[in-house]
């Protein structure tokens, strides 16, 4: 068998392809993005960037009911967006297998929270599988399709960042032949009118009881007997850490964490002296172990936030850890907007204005940091506009500060449009600025409805943001180039004074995907007065040495924004 080094994301894609998956939909989100990027390189599987996660899951439900194996992929918070169809999908069931991949982000490497999506299994009454490396990621998705079809239920495959973005060795197999598409109307199964839905819920409980018997027997859950002194129950990457810290202990490794294999856990607990649950973030397994009346060590000692590491586990269990300490006085190196990033010009234009700014999810969330301090919030996808609306209604005339929303183009398509409609319908004085960099920047430049290209590389209709906003009922829609800072600032100031909903489309391609606008700029040290005003742009190509501004020529892309803001004309 051929072996390859695959990340967990790439292994999920490989597994879906080997399982004969023919339809896959996702919205990009770290750490899940690479799954669809990878799957789109395989033949005979339709892949798309959907407009958001709810759309992706609903479309996957459609494909499943049309009889093909389907996949919906999202990051953990994306499943909140898709939660509505998730619960209905559990009632309805499947025709072709339906697998939903959620990639959770313990430690919040690139997310606004670290929610534990294993709990969705409990709430929606669907099985949850948690792989512990790339081989399992591939194997489990194939098992997930079999379970989905055998029990007529969608299956949740839960990765974490450490599984999604770690690479390990995977054995490659061929693609399975699956049945051709075949749609049949099944009124009582798929129309969730209350009368039918009541039947479906009862029927879901029956399916769930059969799954309960399955989880006790499936090889997805396995006992590895070692020294009976300590028995450890764990899942996902925590299993790998625990194996490393306790090479001789006994393990109950759960691949299917829900439905919970209570019988297997009891059997394991009876034969070990001390029982521990090692899992990341929330006590999902532990709560269910405790519900059996068993005595167990878990989150009473292990941290309830952030990722685990072998060293954290060692410290909690009283093992010796390295005495070497990290140097604590080093300057941090936080992520920053890129040299020549169009968002820099926009945030500079927003400085020193009397405004309240709702922020959103994307690279531009970094505009909340110095030197811009340009956002008041980052809540969830689309919340910039709706936050500003709520603030406006609450403050009314009590506060002179104008209400502004800053939202990226991809985020606007994802869930900004409904918020904008609400602003128009309920008439709030919100200025919505769409930071339109013609791509989904943060996750690595994925296409979206505004780019005119699909995930599979086909030309398509490019949605015109200006027309879209006008169709939403906004009469003041103005396009600006954020590289022209004064013009951008003047436009925003003018709109702040008209006291009605307006949209500014701040349009300029992401600096990482467009051609360099010019040759690197230079500072004339004779003219530079050392006033530091250029540093307020926050451009990583600008520095300050020996009381003068300095442009790092290897970083500068020649955008010219600093030329415009230098009060002395010292940058050429």
């Amino acid at each position, binding site marked *: 068998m051929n072996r390859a080094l695959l990340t967990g994301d790439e292994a999920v894609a490989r597994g879906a392809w080997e399982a004969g998956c023919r339809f896959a939909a996702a919205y990009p989100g770290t750490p899940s993005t690479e799954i669809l990027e990878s799957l789109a390189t395989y033949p005979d599987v339709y892949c798309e960037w959907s407009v958001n996660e709810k759309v992706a899951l609903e479309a996957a439900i459609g494909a499943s009911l049309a009889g093909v194996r389907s996949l919906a992929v999202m990051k953990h918070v994306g499943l909140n967006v898709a939660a509505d169809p998730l619960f209905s999908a559990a009632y309805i069931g499947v025709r072709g297998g339906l697998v939903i991949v959620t990639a959770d982000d313990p430690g919040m490497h690139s997310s606004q929270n670290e929610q534990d999506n294993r709990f969705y299994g409990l709430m929606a009454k669907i099985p949850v599988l948690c792989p512990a490396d790339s081989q399992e990621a591939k194997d489990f998705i194939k098992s997930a399709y079999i379970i989905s079809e055998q029990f007529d239920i969608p299956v949740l495959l839960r990765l974490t960042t450490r599984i999604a973005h770690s690479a390990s060795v995977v054995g490659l197999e061929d693609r399975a032949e699956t049945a051709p598409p075949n749609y049949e109307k099944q009124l009582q199964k798929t129309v969730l009118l209350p009368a039918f839905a009541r039947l479906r819920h009862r029927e879901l409980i029956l399916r769930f009881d059969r799954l309960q018997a399955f989880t006790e027997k499936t090889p997805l859950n396995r006992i590895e007997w070692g020294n009976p002194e300590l028995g450890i129950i764990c899942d996902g990457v925590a299993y790998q850490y625990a194996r490393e810290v306790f090479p001789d202990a006994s393990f109950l490794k759960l691949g299917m964490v829900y439905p919970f294999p209570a019988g297997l856990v009891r059997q394991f607990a009876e034969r070990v002296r001390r029982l521990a649950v090692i899992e990341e973030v929330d006590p999902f397994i532990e709560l269910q172990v405790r519900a059996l009346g068993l005595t167990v060590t878990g989150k009473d000692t292990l941290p309830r936030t952030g990722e685990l590491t072998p060293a954290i586990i060692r410290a909690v269990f009283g093992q010796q850890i*390295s005495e070497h300490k990290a140097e604590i006085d080093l300057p941090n190196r936080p*992520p920053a907007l*890129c040299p020549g990033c169009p968002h820099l010009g926009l945030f500079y234009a927003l400085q020193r204005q009397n405004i309240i700014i709702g922020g959103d999810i994307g690279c531009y969330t970094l505009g909340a940091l110095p030197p811009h301090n340009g956002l008041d919030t980052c809540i969830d996808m689309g919340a910039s506009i709706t936050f500003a609306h709520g603030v406006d209604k609450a403050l009314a005339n009590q506060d002179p500060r104008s209400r502004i929303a800053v939202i990226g183009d991809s985020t606007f398509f994802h869930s900004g449009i409904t918020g904008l409609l609400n602003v128009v319908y309920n008439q709030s004085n919100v200025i919505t600025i769409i930071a339109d960099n013609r791509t989904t920047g943060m996750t*690595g430049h994925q296409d979206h409805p505004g780019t005119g290209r699909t995930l599979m590389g086909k030309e398509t209709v490019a949605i015109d943001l200006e027309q879209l906003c006008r169709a939403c009922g906004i009469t003041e829609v103005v396009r600006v180039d954020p590289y022209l800072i004064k013009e951008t600032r003047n436009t925003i100031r003018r709109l702040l004074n008209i006291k009605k909903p307006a949209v500014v489309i701040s349009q300029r391609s992401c600096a990482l995907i467009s051609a360099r606008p010019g040759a690197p700029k230079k500072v004339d040290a004779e003219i530079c007065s050392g006033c530091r005003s250029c540093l307020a742009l926050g451009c*990583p190509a600008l520095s300050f040495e020996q009381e003068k501004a300095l442009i790092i020529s290897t970083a500068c892309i020649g955008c010219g924004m600093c030329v415009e803001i230098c009060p002395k004309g010292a940058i050429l």
Partner: protein
Amino acid sequence: MNLLVCGVGGQGVLLFSDILAQLALTAGLDVKKSEVHGMAQRGGSVTSHIRWGEKIHSPLIEEGTADIIVAFELLEAVRYLHFLAPAGWLIYDPLTIAPLPVQLGLVEQIASEELEKRIQNRLKKSLAVRAFDTARTLGNPRVQNTVMLGAVSRLLEFPDDLYYQTIKQLVKPQFVEANILAFRRGQELVSK
């Protein structure tokens, strides 16, 4: 083998670790590699953990257990020193790239001499490799990572052919030659 690579987003840390991990796989070993993409790549601090051997469980290297740390930048070298095992090697490029808060004058930079002194005080086995400067004299600063790879190859036991084969496998065809040249130059920077 526990090998930790660190640097600044955009320096080519991820390609460097892809090449090493693939190489260990081709050599028939079990391999795990862990890194974080996304927010971390916007000029932030970037690390990659690579482990190979008979059987590897954890994708993460524990503090105090790295056999080798490869640092593409001086401040990042010092940031991850505590990962090194007592008998481990640090290979670092003495290049410094100021973090944005330092550039903006919000945070004080620590002088290079002070950072180098901390390395000397803490470690017995460290090696400065001017990979970025070497890459620049080769006419392409982007091959800093393969210069570094050449230097690191002196501490590992894989044959040279395996490096060439893996570079060909993972680097775009038009850049293979430049990267192999950079690899050889990196080897020359470190005596056997």
